[in-house]
Each structure stands twice: as C-alpha cells, then as structure tokens.
C-alpha cells in the first residue's frame, strides 16, 4: 500500500470533486445514524453502557503488560502457540517462515487492519504464496490495489459497474450488474479457495486475558471458513487487543457491533480457545497467535497519546465526522481514515509527514460522543498540533520555521498590551483596506494567500467595537 499521507490536500480535493462519492456520502451518515440509534435504544441504559465500555478499555490498557502475560499463559494452556514480534518486518518473517515450512500454497484471509499496516499480503505474494482476502469488501480492495475507504466497509464507495468489470477480469465470469449475482460470483470463486487453503490468517477483535480466548466478529462467514477449514490458523493481533475477562469481552461486543453496523450482534461471533481436539474432523491442527508491537509500545510510552490504544476499530467516529463525510476515506492516505485515522496515521508514520490530517479537523467532538472506547479525539488532535508546534523528537516533529514562530510571538506580544493592541488594529485596518471587495477579503497576497485560498475573511469594521462601546452605542445593533 502506497503511503500518501503527504498528499492529503490533493486527495481531499479529488474526493470533493468526485460526484459519485459525494452522492454516497450524502446518504451514508443518515443510514449509519439511524441504524446505530436504533440498536443502542435496545440497551437498558445506552449511556452507562458506553461508559462501561470506556472503563473496560481503559482498564485493559492501564494494566496491559499484566493482562498480556495472563492471556499468554492461558492460551498456551489451551494449546495455542504464542509468538511475539517487535515490528512489522519481524511479524511478516514469522508468518512467511511458517507458511514455507508447512509448504502452504494458498491462504485465505480475514479482514485485519494490522496486516494492512504491515503489508502482509504483498510480502506473501513476493514469496510466491497466493493470499486471498475473503471479506467481500476487502477482496475488492485487494484486487483493485486500493486503500480502504472505510474501516468497516473498505469498498463501499466503489461503483457496481466497476466491481462487475473487476469480477470479469479476476474470475473470468459473465458480466452482471445484479447485486445478488455479483455476490454469488464472489461466493463461488472464494469457496474454491476455502477448500484449497492450507492456512487461514485472521486478525483478532479481542483477546481475553482470563480465558486465553480470541474473539473474531464477522457477518459474512469467511472467518468461520478461514479458522475452521485449513490445517493452520494464524491470528495476528496488536498488543492492545486485550480485555481482562470474558464478561468484559461480551460487553464490549455489544458496543462493537452496534457501533460498527448498528447490529445488536453480528451474524457470527467466533470464540476460539485453541486448535482442534482429538477426534474433531475439522478445525486447525495448530493455532498460532502472533502478538505484534509495531509502534504500539511507543504510543503507550507517551501518556498523552496512550488512550488511543483503547480503540476497537468500530468505525463509528468516521460515520459522524463532518470532515470524513465530505472528503471520504482516501484523503487520509494510509490504513486508517476519519478521526481515528487523523490520530493513528501521524503516530505510526510521523507527526510531520501526516500533519495535514490532524489540522483538518473541526474539533466539534462528534467523534468523542459516539466512541465506545471513550477516546477523546479533539484533545488528541490538539496534543498533536501542540507537539508539532513546539517540536518533538520522539514523534518526528521539527519545530515550526522561525518566521512562523516569530509571527506568533509577535502576535502574543501585540495582544497582551492595550496600547499595542489598539495601534496594531489601526495598522491592520489600513493595510487590509485595498483588498476588501463586497464586504469580504477574498484574496491576500504573499503570506496571506494561504489563508484566503479556501476561505473569505470578513472585512474589518469601519469603527472597532472598542470605539462603539465607549461612544455609548449600547443596546442597538447599528
């Protein structure tokens, strides 16, 4: 996957100018909101349920190392193999090595954002191993070689016509525009892969510390096949996926499916404790759980950002985001988009590289309101901006250029003295006058041009407020 976080402005513009996408984004938030609202209304106390979810995720993260160890111990008792990987490369090598040793030719894969982060599919492909994404949306994205448009619906923006043509070229089928027909074409094609696959790779939604179980949530049934059919099941999880107890997991599950798709529960919830037992005709002979750091301990070490590890990747914050709902998912240029992407992409890729993302937010807080993990997105956006402004080595943020710092220092000095403020105001009114047309300033030269490229400034008032106040113009609008 190409990393294009630097291209935010260009790609946001592309999104805004895409008529098909605009039409879709016009409908999307309405649908998601209705589904979410209804599903939450079936809980006794939705607000308390969200609070409990946030508390569980916070507790999981607060005591992460202890819970990871407890999980490992239990999972090993249940017969799973636990393998730890410090970075993406190590995780990829572990999996490729295993596939080679087991002479694996075909792998079916469940949707996993972490394996997208680490570009596992490309690496497997480079090693001559056929890997098929089997979640329908993810399959389409993989075959088109695109980034996910939405964490939950990676291809929900792709036009039916385009998918129909894709299926013709990938599967050699007759072209159809019928949605049922397209679905059956994908079913037929991937069924053969499920039959052949010697290995299934999936992500993990939750890893339960007190039972050693992993929980995988899905609607399609592709994960049931990938975990139940092949001889080897490899589950790849970030260190943050832990929850303390099974009861905690069941509670988070209620919030996860409601926040994702507005369902009280998804079609399938897989609870996997270990490999198959003696006498079982299916299920994997071996279960490997790969626990990956991949930049997460670094986030953990910064108390300002640690809370973001509580995210359960439900996608609810995207659905309510006024920015995501205008520009779409591609603008964010990497695995994650929307409010959560504006935090995770910079933390994983560098604050400098991805700085447009966390600046392109309105701080409206709609994301925080729906988040089942209690993440305070606006606060994190501000933290990111602050760290970039003051420069931060750990996060790859240079200090702002001298000119910009000086401007802000001058501004701070200017507004902190009454006389200075008044003089500066006068000076600015006089300087800006030539640029006023029709009550607004539409275009400024030089340094000011960036500011006016996308917005108009209101023209300064003829008589400033301070003057009007002292002249006794109170209680009137003129």
């Amino acid at each position, binding site marked *: 996957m190409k990393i294009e976080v630097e291209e935010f402005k260009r790609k946001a513009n592309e999104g805004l100018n895409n008529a098909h996408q605009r039409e879709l984004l016009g409908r999307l938030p309405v649908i998601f909101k209705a589904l979410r609202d209804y599903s939450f209304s079936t809980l006794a106390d939705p607000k308390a349920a969200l609070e*409990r979810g946030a*508390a569980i995720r916070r507790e999981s993260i607060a005591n992460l190392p202890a819970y990871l160890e407890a999980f490992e111990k239990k999972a090993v008792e249940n017969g799973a193999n636990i393998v730890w990987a410090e970075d993406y490369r190590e995780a990829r090598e572990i999996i490729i090595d295993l596939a080679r040793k087991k002479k694996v030719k075909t792998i079916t894969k469940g949707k996993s954002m972490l394996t997208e982060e680490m570009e596992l599919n490309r690496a497997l492909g480079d090693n001559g191993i056929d890997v098929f994404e089997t979640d329908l949306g993810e399959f389409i994205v993989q075959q088109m070689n695109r980034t996910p448009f939405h964490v939950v*619906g990676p291809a929900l923006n792709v036009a039916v016509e385009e998918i129909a043509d894709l299926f013709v070229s990938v599967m050699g089928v007759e072209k159809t525009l019928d949605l049922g027909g397209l679905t059956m074409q994908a079913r037929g094609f991937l069924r053969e892969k499920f039959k052949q696959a010697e290995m299934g790779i999936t992500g993990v939604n939750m890893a339960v510390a007190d039972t050693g179980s992993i929980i995988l949530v899905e609607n*399609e049934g592709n994960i049931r096949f990938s975990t139940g059919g092949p001889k080897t099941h490899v589950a790849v999880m970030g260190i943050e996926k832990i929850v303390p107890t099974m009861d905690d997991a069941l509670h988070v599950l209620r919030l996860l499916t409601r926040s994702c798709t507005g369902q009280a529960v998804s079609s399938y919830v897989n609870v996997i404790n270990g490999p198959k037992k003696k006498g*079982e005709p*299916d299920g994997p002979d071996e279960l490997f759980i790969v626990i990956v750091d991949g930049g997460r301990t670094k986030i953990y070490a910064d108390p300002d950002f640690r809370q973001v590890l509580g995210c359960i990747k439900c996608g609810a914050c995207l659905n309510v985001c006024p920015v995501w709902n205008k520009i779409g998912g591609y603008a964010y240029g990497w695995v994650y988009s929307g409010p959560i992407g504006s935090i995770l992409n910079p933390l994983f890729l560098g604050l400098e590289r991805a700085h447009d993302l966390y600046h392109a937010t309105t701080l409206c807080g709609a994301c925080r309101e729906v988040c089942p993990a209690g993440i305070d997105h606006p606060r994190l956006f501000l933290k990111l901006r602050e760290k970039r402004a003051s420069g931060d080595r750990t996060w790859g943020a240079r200090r702002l250029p001298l000119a910009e710092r000086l401007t802000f220092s001058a501004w701070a000095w200017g507004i902190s003295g009454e006389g200075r403020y008044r003089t500066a105001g006068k000076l600015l009114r006089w300087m800006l006058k030539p640029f006023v047309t029709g009550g607004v300033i539409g275009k400024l030269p030089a340094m000011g041009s960036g500011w006016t490229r996308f917005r108009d400034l209101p023209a300064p008032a003829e008589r400033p407020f301070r003057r009007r106040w002292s002249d006794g113009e109170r209680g009137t609008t003129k």
Partner: protein
Amino acid sequence: MTTRPTARENILNKLREAVSWPKAESASRPKIGTGDAGDPAALTDIFETKATGAAAVVKRVGGISEATRQIVSFMKEDGLSSAIISDEEIIGKAGIKAALEKAGLRAITISSEPADYKEACFAADAGITGAPYGIAETGSLAMVFDSRNPRLVSHAPFCHIALLMADDILPDTETLVARVTERRVPPSAMALVTGPSMTADIALTAVRGIHGPGKLYIIIIG
C-alpha cells in the same frame, strides 16, 4: 516457529517501564442490564422474535417426531436433495437419516465419509445439526464445536437447519459462558450464529449468503 528470545521481553519491558496512569482515573464498572430477556418464561418468545428479526426462519414444534417431519418439508420446499448431518444425540433420536432417505433425499453422516468429510460438507445442499444453546437477547444459536458437531457441517452448505430445545434457550451470552465453563475443559471453538451469512459491501445493500449459509432454519422443540 518460535519467538526471538528478546522480542517478548522487549515488548513487555517497554510497557512495564512506561509511566503508569494515575490511579484515580480508572473508573468503576457498573453492571448493565441488557434491556431484553428479563422474564425467563418469555425466553422462547423473545428468542423467536429476535431470530426472525435477524432473518432466520423459526418454527416451533411440540415434539421430536414433528421436528423430523418439519426438516423433511423444509428440504422439499427448497428443492434440496442432500444433507450432511451431525452426530449429536438429538439428531440420532430424531431419526433424521432414515426420514430423509424414506423421503428420497440423500443423507450423509459425518462418520460415514471421514476421508471426504470436507468435500462432503461443501457438496451437501443442507447441513442439519443440533444447537446446544439459544440466546434470547439476540436470537442467536450458540454452536459449541466438538467431534460430534464439527464446524463445517453447519457452515459449508447453503442451508443450515438447526434443532434447538426450548429448555436450552438462555437469556444472554454471560449465562452461556457460565454454562459452558462449568465443563472441565473449554471447547476448542464456539460460534454465535445470528441469522444467515450477510454482506453489505457492494453499494451498501444487504445480500444474504455471501460465504456461509444463505438460509437458516431453526426448529424449536418444546
């Protein structure tokens, strides 16, 4: 495949060395009622409503022989000619193999074709199994997999027909987990099944039967 010796320690040490969060901030966890499934007498009704809402077809019957007849008629109505059946007690009691064969349908047991087991699951029109438990809160079947009720029988065919005893309907998943962990060893895997397989990945439109069963029949006995 083993972990590089230092990887595990490095990760855990980095986490341990990170400054801990202030204690006061770790909030308490109120117990949350689930809003549904309060009245045990009404569990079957709630289950039926929820399962039907999730697009399963639910049929309530008085006894096991009626259940067997119902299976045959589901198969005939849908024009299905073969079924793979699980090896559970309830399936044996219901005499499903004999009933299907008498009706001119093909019945494959999981023990009859162990070598071709996987192939047989993919080839059958229907999979017939018991469901150890039902969950009223969501209308889900709790499939607890073992050698007699293995994973693919209920998942590979396009149609899944499940027999569920009314007494085995539990209020919620917490009760289910308590029930299952009473056993000495946990099952290798479980799946909660709620309605047929579904996707909305193309044009945001729901379509059934993308990978798993496109049809789910639940017969509640008692």
